[in-house]
């Protein structure tokens, strides 16, 4: 899957560890920037900068709630990453399904041999 190396890309947006932390913090529910800054122990302008990048790729949405602005994760924008990792996981799941069969076989043989080795 070729993809453009631009910041306007969910892959790049989440390549930055701080931005992943922000997403982690938002998965539990929407939060204002000040709360994010406190949780992550970062200065608020830094958090705002990361939020801007995340908003640009659609990974984070914002809404006004009175005087506060609340940020939340937009799962749809992160779906390409989900799909990409999931395909790799599928390869390994297939292997592990075969491995399960091998292990059942080994367990049975051990029992047939009369005990735990």
């Amino acid at each position, binding site marked *: *899957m070729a993809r453009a190396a631009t910041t306007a890309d969910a892959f790049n947006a989440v390549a930055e560890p701080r931005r992943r932390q922000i997403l982690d913090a938002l998965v539990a529910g929407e939060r204002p920037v000040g709360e994010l800054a406190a949780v992550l122990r970062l200065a608020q302008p830094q958090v705002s900068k990361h939020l801007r990048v995340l908003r640009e790729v659609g990974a984070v949405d914002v809404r006004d709630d009175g005087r506060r602005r609340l940020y939340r994760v937009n799962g749809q924008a992160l779906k390409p990453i*989900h799909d*990409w990792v999931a395909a790799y996981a*599928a390869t390994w*799941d*297939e292997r592990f*399904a075969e491995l399960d069969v*091998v292990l059942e076989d080994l367990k049975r043989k051990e029992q047939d041999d009369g005990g735990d080795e």
Partner: protein
Amino acid sequence: MAATSSGSGKVTLPSDEQILITREFGAPRHLVFRAYTEPELVRRWWAGKRGEMTLAEIDLRVGGRWRYVMIATGGQEVAFHGEFIEIVPGEKLVNTEVFEGAPAGTAPALSTVTLAEVDGRTTMSMLMELESREVRDMILESGMEGGLQEGLDLLEQVAAELR
């Protein structure tokens, strides 16, 4: 976490250069270790359903080498090799891994498999450490080429897990 169900592997990306796979098996860890390190057992699972293994050579000692070759269903040959760095029987296996189709100059990956047993069940974690994010992404994309996405209900909350 939504992705954790028995029988499903979980893939996370702890950093830009790492891939971590965890999986629980309904067998004690000495058997999982055997299945990972005895060639005749590896041959039975490593290719998954993507092809047939034609070679599994394992010289299980520190500094010893291994090499796996499989013929994928599409006919192409896929080969990996590497060297054992650390071996703790039943517990831990550290080895390098080179995909023989990778661009020349790509550094070997470092794979660390650890096995933890509770009540006769084993949780395996396999950490792959790559040279760079680019190499990591290339490896993840190779999973894509397998076209094996069907019926998969994994990693619904990938954002939560990219830690």
